[in-house]
């Protein structure tokens, strides 16, 4: 663990005295906190600490206000999206990650910065959701690369709301990956394991649910280790897990979590996320919990977790890995989509091109070729 990472985790979890190096490099610590999305939490922990220099104090304070304001806007837009829900006869959606946890697990909504709000809805209700969202003046954030690709490959549709379309709400009909991807679980298991969600204020009367602690632990682990990967996983995601275990740990059904992790091929992801959380925050885990997982190092899940831990992964590596995960047929469709996206997508992706957007096809192919060659070269050198 890097020293500033250890110091940061130490402050957040209250054992800083043992992990602080002397003297503290406050600038590096604050920068790290911003990168790891834990700056508001750090401010909360250090607000009265006289050691924190004024400049860094103001920066952290500003991050707290920024998170408060962003989350206010996001929840307001969520309310606008959910308002007509009951009339339409749709079931309340299930909030995931930050959108659920900021108001129900954290002491203050602004302590948990969010870039967007994620909702899980039954796949068969997606069209009605999109119709409702359109009526509430939400629009799709990006066009599909090619017709039907979203349903075939992806697992959510990103919508933009807010006065300047700045608030993103992602409507998930699957989790982690598209349904043909081996990493994707059966979302129905998650839709059946929900509980009432606590809205940010009593005035927010819209109805939504959240995953129960067992399902949330599994999802948070897979999201960190299999969707994004350990190399790019933010500290805030492990702090989510830390808080979930610390505050709701008594409600986690461990035997079910371990069994289901094996069913989803998420056992390695769960083990890795728990290990990382414990290493960062000294989070107590149930005795024997990790050992019971008996992760097979050569298994598909373990290999994927290791691959995603590699900090040197290029975008070409990522895309190649995603293409392989969805299988040959759909991978081919996806590759075609990447190389020959529809005009609407090109115009959205290269707004600077104006009428010259067709000229950006060769630019795109050259980029794919360049990045692919680099990744191959890197593999050969490493091998």
């Amino acid at each position, binding site marked *: 663990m890097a020293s500033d990472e250890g110091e940061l985790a130490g402050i957040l979890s209250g054992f800083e005295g043992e992990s602080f190096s002397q003297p503290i490099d406050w600038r590096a610590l604050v920068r790290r906190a911003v990168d790891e999305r834990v700056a508001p939490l750090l401010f909360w922990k250090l607000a009265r600490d006289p050691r924190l220099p004024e400049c860094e104090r103001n920066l952290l304070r500003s991050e*707290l206000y920024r998170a*408060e304001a*962003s989350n*206010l*806007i996001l929840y*307001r837009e969520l309310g606008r999206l959910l308002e007509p829900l009951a009339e339409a006869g749709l079931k309340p959606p299930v909030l995931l990650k930050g959108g659920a946890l900021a108001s129900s697990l954290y002491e203050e909504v602004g302590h948990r910065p969010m870039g967007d709000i994620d909702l899980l809805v039954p796949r068969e209700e997606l069209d009605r959701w999109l119709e409702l969202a359109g009526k509430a003046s939400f629009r799709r954030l990006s066009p599909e690369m090619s017709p039907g690709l979203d349903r075939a490959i992806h697992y959510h549709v990103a919508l933009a709301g807010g006065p300047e379309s700045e*608030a993103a709400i992602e409507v998930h009909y699957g989790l982690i990956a598209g349904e043909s991807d081996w990493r994707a679980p059966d979302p129905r298991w998650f839709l059946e394991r929900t509980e009432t969600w606590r809205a940010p204020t009593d005035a927010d009367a819209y109805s939504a649910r959240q995953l129960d602690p067992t399902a949330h632990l599994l999802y948070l682990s897979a999201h960190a280790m299999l969707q994004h990967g350990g190399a*790019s996983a933010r500290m805030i995601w492990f702090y989510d897990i830390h808080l979930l275990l610390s505050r709701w740990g008594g409600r986690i059904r461990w035997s079910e979590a371990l069994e289901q992790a094996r069913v989803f091929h998420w056992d390695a992801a769960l083990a890795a996320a728990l290990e990382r959380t414990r290493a960062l925050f000294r989070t107590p885990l149930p005795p024997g919990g990790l050992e019971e997982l008996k992760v097979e190092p050569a298994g598909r899940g373990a290999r994927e977790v290791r691959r995603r831990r590699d900090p040197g992964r290029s*975008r070409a590596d990522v895309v190649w890995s995603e293409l392989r995960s969805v299988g040959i047929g759909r991978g081919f469709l996806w590759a075609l989509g*990447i190389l020959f996206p529809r005009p609407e997508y090109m115009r959205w992706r290269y707004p600077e091109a104006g009428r010259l957007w067709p000229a950006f096809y060769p630019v795109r192919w050259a980029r794919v070729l360049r990045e692919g060659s680099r990744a191959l070269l890197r593999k050969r050198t490493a091998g």
Partner: protein
Amino acid sequence: MGLRRAAHVAWRRVGGETVVVHLRNKKIFVLNPSGGFFWHGLDGARGTEEFLKSLTFHDPLPDSASGRIEAFLRDLREADLVDAEGPPDEAPASLPEFPLPTFIPPELVWQQELRNFGTSCVFMAGSSGPCDTVPTT
């Protein structure tokens, strides 16, 4: 003159402070606890005079109180956070007790712009660490 909180703002109490967001220009304003008290009383039926009448302390109010409240409400108007138009709420909520033992002037203690809103992966396709699973080029 009665002022009311503008429709294009959102706010939330954070500890003793109140964070107010102007939804159009994306500016964030932070009010001190005293400012938060007056902010929550801005329902269209109150101005400086009404606020002054509602303040009851053991010690008399300082002479400057009226001017400080007026200046605060002016700051809110200048920041486009309140409207002077429109009828008051039919039944304005009664004001809670002032949150401090003595009169502390209400103030905007912090202002900043909300930059880089939304770090969603879809805003930054392929350009950042956590977004590197978005297979766009």
